[in-house]
């Protein structure tokens, strides 16, 4: 895609896969540490095994799903407020919409 034919790090799908596998490994290790480390707890829920991990994951999934729902209600075209003025950056494209 880029003008020169140089291969960049993430042009190789293998490298992308490696990053994802790395992330998975990190997640497993962090949850595994819950077995080993004795966390001090203020709120009773904090003591639940893997509470923070679960909360982070579920929280983000809920966030994205709700945001998608929100988008259905509030999304408009870019020129909604001001049909006369285009978006900066579009000028040189000869007015593609």
């Amino acid at each position, binding site marked *: 895609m880029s003008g020169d034919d140089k291969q960049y790090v993430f042009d190789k799908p293998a490298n992308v896969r490696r990053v994802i596998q790395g992330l998975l490994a990190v997640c497993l290790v962090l949850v595994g540490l819950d077995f080993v480390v004795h966390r001090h707890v203020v709120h009773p829920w904090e003591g639940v095994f893997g509470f923070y*991990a679960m909360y982070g994951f579920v929280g983000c999934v809920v966030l994205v799903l709700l945001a998608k729902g929100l988008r259905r209600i509030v999304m408009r075209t870019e020129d909604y407020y001001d049909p006369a003025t285009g978006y900066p950056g579009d000028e040189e494209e000869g007015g593609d919409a």
Partner: protein
Amino acid sequence: MPEVFPALPLLFGALAAVLTRGRLRAVLMLAAPVVGAYCVWTLAPGTTAHIELLGYDLTPLRVDTLSTLFGYLFHLAAFLGVVYSLHLKDTPQLVASLAYAGCAVGAVFAGDLLSLFIFWELLAVTSAVLVCARGDDRALGAGVRYLLVQVASGVLLLAGTIVYARAGNSLDFNAIGTDAPGGWLILAAFGIKSAFPLVHNWLTDAYPESSPTGTVFLTSFTTKVAIYALARGFAGTELLVYVGATMACFPIFYAVVANDLRRVLAYSLINQLGFMVVGIGVGTQLAVNGAVAHACTDVLFKGLLMMSMGAVLHVTGEMRASELGGLYKKMPKTALLCMVGAASISAFPLFSGFVSKSMIVTAVLHEGYDWIWLALLFAAAGVFHHAGIKIPFFAFFSHDSKHVKTAHEPPTNMLVAMSISAALCIGIGCFPRMLYGLLPYAVDYSPYDITHVLTQMQLLAFSALAFTSLKLYHVYPPELRSIHLDAQWMYRRLAPSALRWVFLRLRGIDSALRSFSLATLSRVADGVARHHGPGGILARSWPTGSMMLWMATLLGLTLLLYYF
């Protein structure tokens, strides 16, 4: 050296930017924040300066730990901003930038409400110049809307001050609270500038429309002055806990779907302000310290993120996620610096956000606000999601955009400013004592224990996992050329449409009234014409003879009556 009013060096710097050009201007503009910071350093806590104005005792200078901390912070932000905009030749923008920073410094050293009001309004005017800096219709429109909101905040502050002072309070700006007369007005004024829910939209409307350099300045000052004012005037106001939690949560939904990456950052700015407002609302020493510390770290990491996005905008002329991507190939340094900012805002251990945000969350948990604590955890995970991952991912990775061919690293001065910010983010993250030593209350707090680090890492790693899986399974909402309606819809669409509807109805009533009165008038005119017009009964001329005849008849009648 005698004490110098600490805002003066920056204001003189602004003057120098008018009068000089080229290298001299660059040197003077760089010197201004350094000299200003030195002035702050020479001021001993407890120093005050008084002037008498119209019978009021004003305190334009009052030095304590809180104002000193913000004084240093604003000079640092101004310095970084100046370095970032060294390539710029646009005089009005440079002048406005330094004047704006100077007003922010003036505001935090103002010891009374009237002086605060003056700087409050000057902040509005100088920053509006920055919003308009790009000069196109969109920027000008956003600038006018921005100025209206900011001036409204100033008017509320003045009204509150008047009510407060007339109730017999001194004008000194200390803890006010909502029970004080005028307290609600003043809180509303501070609330507008802190982007409270429903009055937040000026921020996400105006900041993304400014120039790459203007946004960096805008991000650093207005909202932080408001946070300072809230911390001084309304610490411990419980309402703020709930307001702050709302601010921390609702913008992240918008940030997930927003397309303009600087708008994403603007929403995430509100989210960070939410953490600070919660801290101020909780009001314990740890919480207020956390709020103030978070304001400091936010200036650095949000500034860094805005700088990196500004660099992308500067190079490509594009800021929409849907049109960007793959830029790590040509802007690796910018990408790396952006990721340092992203790690800091997401509160990764060893980065600056961690040492300040954890103070607030800990304080909330210890004070027993369980639901607020859960909300803040959700917000913390959400921040990583939209600011920590989305920003770098869609700008620098994702799919290759057409800009990859032509992109290159930004000017050196931009890279230098970003590098200093990044170094400070990591520095504060690794050595939090640097920051804690400057906080208003003595700190007995260490963020680095194994529980904190582990739980935070779990939260973040699994947020990242959620993003990755949603992206892989194509659940993640695609970046689309679009905007999203927010509170401003009320004044940009609803109010104008409502007014148009009202005026249309009024026009109907108005024309009915007009035609009715015209008809009445013409009926009256017809009547008059009939009776008084030519041939009308009342307009007929009578011959003198008939009058004489009637006179004679009357006299005759009188005579007859006289005889009988």
